[in-house]
C-alpha cells in the first residue's frame, strides 16, 4: 500500500466518501466495489501499457466506446446513460464542457493518474449537474513521503511510442513535490477488413489500412503540497497538448482532417481544523480548446471553454455523526466560432450528513443549485452499508441527477440543426442494492440497479428538414453488476466482472419504444488471470485478460448490430528488484476486428514492450 502524506486526496476526502480498496496492491481486474464508490489504483498497473480509456473499459457497469487507436476520441457511459450524462472530473474539476458532448478520455494520459474513482448512479448531490449515470473522478499523482522517480518507455505496434517520467519527493517535512511528464505518439495505421460497403459480397472485400490517424500529445503535471501545522495546502497544475489526424468513417474518409486540443487545469486546495471543525476550500480552473479542420469538406470549428469552480465546506463531528454544510460556485463560459460566446453561473448550497457506527454506515447529501439559466434544482443522495458479519455486508444507494442543456443544444444554428432555448434540464433517479462478500481468499459483490431517465433531450425532425432538440424522451436502465475474485494461492489471482444492462428506450416512438438503446451493449464481461512469483530474485508476472461486450445496436429500431467483441490480451513481466522491469504484452492476441461505432474499426493484434527503471 502506498503511504500518503495526507490520508487521501484533499478534495476527494472533503466531498465524498471513498473507501479504500481492499486489495490495492493487486493487479486484478481493476474493480473493487466498496460501499459507495469504486477506486482503481493506477500504480498497480504501472508495468502495463494502458490508457485511461483502457482502464475504464474494464470497470463493471461502464461502457467505453472508442473511435480506434491511441488518442482517438473515447467516451464512457455508466448504467445506460449517454456519455454526456456522466460527469468526468480531474482532481475534482469538471472536464465536461459546457458546449456539450461526452468527455474525451484520451485527453488524459494515464502517466499522471494516481487513481480513478467511479461512482455509479445518479449523484448530482455530490458535484452538481451532469452526473445522471455516474461520476468518474480522475485523481492525479500526489507527492510521496520519500524520494521516488521512475522513467518508463514503451514501443509498440502501429508506431506507438511513449516516454513518461515521474518524480516525487519531500522537500522538507512540510513540503512535498510531484512532477510528471509524458509524450505519446502513434501512427495508428493498423489494418482492418474493408467490406467496400457491401456486407454480403465477399468478392470485393480487401484488407485496408487506417490512414490519417496519427496522434501525438505531451502532458505534464506539477503538484506541490504544504503542511502547515493543522493546515494542508495543495497547489497543482497539469495539462496536455494533443494533435490528432482524424481519419473519418470507413465509407467517408477524411484524408486531411486535423484536430488540435489543449487542456489546462489549475487547482488550489486547502484544508485544516479549527478545534473540532474541519474546513476545506478548493479553487480550480479548467481551460480547454479544441479546433477541427477538414479542408476537403470546408469545415472549421474552434471552441474554447473555461470552468472556474470554488468549493467550501465545514465539517462538524457529533460522535458518530458528521454534519458538513458547504457552498460551491461554478462559472462556465464558452466561445465558439459557430455558437458565439455564452456563460452561465451556478451557485450551490449543500449539506452532508454521515453516520458511521460499526457495523452500520450511512451517508447522505442534499444539494440546492441555483443556476443563472435554469433556476433551482434540488437533488439528494443517500447510501447505506451494513455489515452482517465481518465478511458479509449489504449496501444500497439512491439518488437523483440532472443535466442542464449544453450551449450547443441551446444555441447551435447551422445546417440541419437548430438549438432550442426553451430546453429544460434532463432528470434522473436511480437506486441500487446488493450484497458483498469479502474474504482473505475471495470476494463477491453483486448489485442490482435501476435507473430512470426523464425529460431527455432528443433531436426531433422539424418542418423544413431540420432538427431541433426537445425534452421529450425517456429511458430506463436496469441490470446487474457482478464482481468476483479468488486468490487460491499467494501468486495466483483470478478476477472478473459481468454487467447485464437492459437499457431501454421509453420515448413512445414507434420502432424505438422498448428497444435497447444503440451504443449500449446488454452484456459485458471481463475476466483476468494474474500470476506473480519470485524466481531467483526475479519477480516474474503473467496476465491474461478477456474482454467481452455484446455488439451494440446501431439503429434505434434494433435492426442492425455490431459484432460482439471478444478480446484476449496477454502480458509477461520481469522485474529485477524494484529498479528495473521489462514488460511484454500482446493486446487483442486473437486479432479480432471489431468496432465500437459503425465505420470506426479498432486495432487488431498489437505488441508492446515497456521498460521501466526506478531511481
Amino acid at each position, binding site marked *: 500500500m502506498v503511504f500518503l502524506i495526507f490520508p487521501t486526496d484533499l478534495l476527494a476526502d472533503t466531498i465524498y466518501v471513498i473507501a479504500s480498496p481492499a486489495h490495492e496492491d493487486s493487479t486484478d481486474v481493476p474493480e473493487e466495489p466498496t460501499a459507495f464508490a469504486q477506486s482503481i489504483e493506477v500504480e498497480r498497473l504501472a508495468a502495463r501499457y494502458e490508457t485511461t480509456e483502457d482502464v475504464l473499459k474494464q470497470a463493471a457497469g461502464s461502457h467505453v466506446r472508442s473511435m480506434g487507436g491511441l488518442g482517438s476520441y473515447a467516451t464512457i457511459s455508466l448504467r445506460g446513460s449517454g456519455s454526456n450524462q456522466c460527469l468526468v472530473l480531474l482532481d475534482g474539476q469538471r472536464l465536461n464542457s459546457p458546449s456539450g458532448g461526452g468527455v474525451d478520455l484520451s485527453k488524459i494520459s494515464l502517466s499522471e493518474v494516481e487513481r480513478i474513482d467511479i461512482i455509479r448512479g445518479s449523484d448530482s448531490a455530490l458535484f452538481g449537474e451532469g452526473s445522471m449515470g455516474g461520476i468518474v473522478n480522475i485523481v492525479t499523482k500526489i507527492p510521496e513521503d520519500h524520494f521516488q522517480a521512475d522513467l518508463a518507455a514503451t514501443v509498440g505496434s502501429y508506431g506507438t511510442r511513449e516516454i513518461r517520467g515521474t518524480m516525487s519527493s519531500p522537500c522538507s517535512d512540510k513540503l512535498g513535490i510531484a512532477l510528471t511528464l509524458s509524450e505519446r505518439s502513434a501512427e495508428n495505421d493498423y489494418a482492418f477488413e474493408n467490406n467496400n460497403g*457491401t456486407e*454480403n459480397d465477399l468478392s470485393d472485400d480487401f484488407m485496408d489500412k487506417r490512414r490519417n490517424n496519427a496522434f501525438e500529445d505531451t502532458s505534464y503535471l506539477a503538484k506541490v503540497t504544504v503542511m502547515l501545522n493543522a493546515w494542508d495546502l495543495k497547489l497543482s497544475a497539469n495539462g496536455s497538448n494533443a494533435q490528432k489526424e482524424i481519419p473519418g468513417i470507413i465509407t467517408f474518409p477524411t484524408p486531411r482532417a486535423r484536430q488540435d486540443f489543449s487542456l489546462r487545469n489549475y487547482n488550489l486546495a486547502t484544508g485544516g481544523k479549527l478545534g473540532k471543525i474541519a474546513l476545506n476550500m478548493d479553487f480550480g480552473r479548467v481551460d480547454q480548446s479544441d479546433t477541427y479542420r477538414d479542408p476537403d*469538406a470546408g469545415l472549421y470549428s474552434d471552441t474554447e471553454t473555461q470552468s472556474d469552480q470554488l468549493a467550501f465546506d465545514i465539517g462538524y463531528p457529533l460522535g458518530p455523526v458528521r454534519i458538513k454544510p458547504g457552498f460551491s460556485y461554478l462559472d462556465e463560459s464558452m466561445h465558439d466560432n*459557430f455558437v458565439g460566446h455564452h456563460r452561465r453561473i451556478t451557485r450551490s448550497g449543500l449539506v452532508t450528513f454521515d453516520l458511521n457506527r460499526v457495523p452500520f454506515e450511512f451517508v447522505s447529501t442534499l444539494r440546492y443549485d441555483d443556476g443563472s439559466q435554469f433556476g433551482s434544482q434540488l437533488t439528494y443522495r443517500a447510501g447505506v452499508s451494513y455489515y452482517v458479519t465481518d465478511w458479509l455486508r449489504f449496501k444500497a444507494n439512491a439518488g437523483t441527477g440532472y443535466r442542464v442543456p449544453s450551449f450547443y443544444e441551446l444555441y447551435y444554428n447551422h*445546417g440541419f440543426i437548430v438549438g432550442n432555448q426553451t430546453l429544460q434540464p434532463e432528470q434522473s433517479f436511480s437506486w441500487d442494492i446488493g450484497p458483498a462478500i469479502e474474504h482473505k481468499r475471495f470476494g463477491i459483490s453483486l448489485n442490482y440497479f435501476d435507473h430512470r431517465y426523464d425529460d431527455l433531450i432528443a433531436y426531433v425532425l422539424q*418542418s423544413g*428538414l431540420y432538427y431541433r432538440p426537445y425534452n421529450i424522451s425517456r429511458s430506463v436502465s436496469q441490470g446487474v453488476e457482478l464482481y468476483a475474485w479468488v486468490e487460491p494461492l499467494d501468486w495466483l489471482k483470478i478476477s472478473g466482472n459481468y454487467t447485464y444492462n437492459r437499457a431501454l428506450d421509453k420515448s413512445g416512438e414507434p420502432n424505438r419504444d422498448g428497444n435497447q438503446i444503440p451504443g449500449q451493449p446488454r452484456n459485458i464481461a471481463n475476466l483476468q488471470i494474474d500470476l506473480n512469483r519470485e524466481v531467483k530474485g526475479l519477480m516474474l508476472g503473467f496476465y491474461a485478460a478477456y474482454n467481452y461486450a455484446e455488439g451494440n445496436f446501431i439503429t434505434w429500431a434494433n435492426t442492425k448490430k455490431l459484432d460482439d467483441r471478444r478480446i484476449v490480451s496477454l502480458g509477461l513481466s520481469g522485474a529485477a528488484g524494484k529498479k528495473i522491469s521489462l514488460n511484454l504484452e500482446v493486446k487483442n492476441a486473437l486479432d479480432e476486428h471489431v468496432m465500437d461505432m459503425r465505420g470506426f474499426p479498432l486495432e487488431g493484434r498489437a505488441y508492446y514492450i515497456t521498460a521501466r527503471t526506478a531511481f
Partner: protein
Amino acid sequence: MKKKGLFIIAFILVLGVAACDRAENRMGAGSAEDISDSLIVVNNLAETLSILDTQGKIHNDVQLTGSSPNAIVHDPPYIYVVNSLSNSLEVLSDIDLSIVGEISVGAGRNPMQAALIQKRMLAVTSFLTGCLDIVDIDTKKVARSIDLSGIELPRDVPEIRGKSYPYGVAVNAGKIFVTLANLTDHYGGLTAAGPGVVAVIDAQDFKIIGTIVLEGADPVFAQAYGSRVIIACAGHYEGDITKPQSSGFKGDGTIEIIETDSMQLSKSYDLKAAPFSFSISRDGILYASNAMGAQIPKINLTSDEITFLNLGGAYISSVLVVGNTLYVLDFSSDQLFALNSQGDIQAQYTVGDGPLAMLSLSDITVEGTIIPKLNVNPLIASPGIEINFDASPSLVPDGVYIYTWDFGDGQSDTGKTVKHAYLVEGEYTVTLTIKGEKGEERGQCLVKVVNASPFATQMIDYAPAPGQFIHNPQYNDPNKALGPPVGGTPLQPDNSSVVSLGGFGGSIILAFDHEVNDNPGAPDFIVFGNAQYDRAPLRFIEPGIVEISADGDIWYLIPGSSLVSFFGQPTYRKVEKYYPETDQTYSTYQLPSTIRDDIEDNQYLIWGYADLSPVLALPQGADITQFYNSPDNPLSVGIDPDTCGGDAFDIAWAVDPVTGESAHLTGFKFIKISTAVDGTLGGSLGEFSTEVDAVSDIDLK
C-alpha cells in the same frame, strides 16, 4: 428451396400472391379503388424494407445489408436500393426480395438517387463528388463517372458561390437529366446558393450536351413523364445565407417541367412547400411530398390548378400514386397512409423507422409500360430439338396483347408460349414483339444451335412433390433446367433459371441430345442447382439423388457418400412417401433429414448428390459452353479456381440399385434428379427441396 435468403423467406408467399394479383389486375380483375397492391417502403433509419402485402398487412422486418437506404428502382426481375451511407447498390429479386448482389460505387461518394438507362444499367448521382456514376449491374462496376462539378452555377448573392451536388436523375429519350443542387456550406450546413441547374447527358456517349437553369433552388428529384422531364426543387432555406443562421426551408419550392427534345424549361409551378419527390396519377394529377410537412401539394398538369391535401405530419417524405390510391409516408411518425382521390385516409400503417421512399410492384403497369421478357429454354440446342419460347414473365398493362415471335430463321409464330425447332446449326436472334392498343415493344435473345449441345435439351418428366415453391411460376417451369445455367456468387445464387422439385421424392427427368460418355478417371457431367456456400458450417444445401439411364428404362443410381457405409457397403434403400394433400406417392432414395455438413480430412462427408455446391456466374468474356463444363472437384472443399462450381459426377460411380454392384456404364442419355431429404427447417423456412438449374456434359465443350 428453403434458406437462400433466410431473412426474407417469410415474404416469398406474400409476394408470390402479390405477383398473382398483379396478373389479375392486368386482366381487369383488380379494382381501381383497391389499396391492396403490394408496396415496398424503404426505411432509411431502420435500414430495412417494409412490405404492404396484398392482404393489407404490413411486414417490417426485411433487412437490408447497406446503410442509410435512400432510393429504390425497379428493373424486373430486380429491385435496386441506393444506400447512401455504405456507398452501395443492393440488388434484390422482385419476386422474393432475396438479395441477389451488392455493388460498391466507392468510398466518399454518397449516392442519392438512380434511374435506369437501360436494362441492367443505372445512372446514379454521386452527391459528394459532383459526378454521375454509370453502374453496370452485370459487371458490378461503375463503368463510367461523369464529372459535373465544372458546370457554371448561378448565384443568389455575388459573394457566395455554390457547388454542384448531383441529386435527382431521370432518363428520357436517350438523355440523362441530372439535377444539380447548387449549394453552399458557407454557414456550416448546406443550403441553396442559387437556382438549381439540370445537366443533360447523352445516354450513348455520356457527353454533356446541355444545361438548363431552373427557377427554383435545390432541385432534388427528377422523373420522366411522356416527352417531358419533371423536376422537384425543395427551395431555399430561411434567412440570409451571408449570415450564419438556419431555420429550415423557406417554402419557395417549385415543380418545373423540361421539354426533353428542346431541353428547355417550359413551365414552373410555385409551391408554398418543399417538395422532395412526386408521383403522377393516370389522369395527370401530380402529388408532391413536402419536407415542411402538413400539406401535400396537388397540381393538375392539364389545368395548372394547384391545391393542397391536408394530412399533418412534420415531414412528408414520399408520395406514390397506385391506381386511384395515393400512398403517403411520414418520416417522423413512421406512418404509411393510403388516401383516396379526395384525400381521405383509407388505411394507415406503422412502417419501419424513417420511411423515405416507396415502390409499387404494379407501378410499371400504372405507367403503361410494356416490358417484354423472354423465357427461352434451352438456349443452346441441336437441330430438330423443340425449344420452348415463353413470354409470360413480360410486364404489360391491362389490356389485350398480341405476342409475335420471330425466330430469326425466317419462321415466326404468335402466342404467349410457343415451340420451335431449328433445322440448321447457327446462331439465331429471336425477337419477341408485344403489341397492344397503346403501342408495342420488342425484346430479343440469342439462341445457339449446335450439332450436339453440352447441356440437356429435353425435359422428359417433371413430377414435383408438394412444397412451398412448386406453385410459384418463378420456380415451377421445368424447361428452365434445359440449356446452360445462370450462376451467381457462392453466397448469392441466381434463382432466375432454377426449377424446384418440391419436397421429398419430387423429381425431374432430363435428356441430352447425345450419349454422355464415360471418361475414365474423370468427372463426366455436372448438375447445377442453387446451393449456397460460405465456409463450414455456413453451407446451405438441398441434396438431390441422381440416377442415370442409357435408354430411359433401366436406371442406375449414383450412390453418394451418405449412401455408402464406412466399409464401402451400400446402405441405400428406396423409400416411398405418400402425400395426402395430393393423394400421390413419390419414391426415391432417402438421405437423413439431419444432414451432416462437417468437413473431415479435407473432404465433404457429403458428395455424389445434386445441389450441394454453388454455381458461379459466367465471367465477362467467357464462353458459356467452355465455362460451364469446367468441373469443380466434387471431393474437395469449396469451389476450385477456374471452375464453374456445381456438382460433378463420374459415370463410373453408377451402381445397380438392386445389387449394389458397379453398373459398368459407358454412357447415358437420360438423367433423373429427385429430392433426397425428407424434412423441413421448421417455420417459414420450408422444406428441403432440390433445385435444378442445368445439367452439362463435361467432355462436350
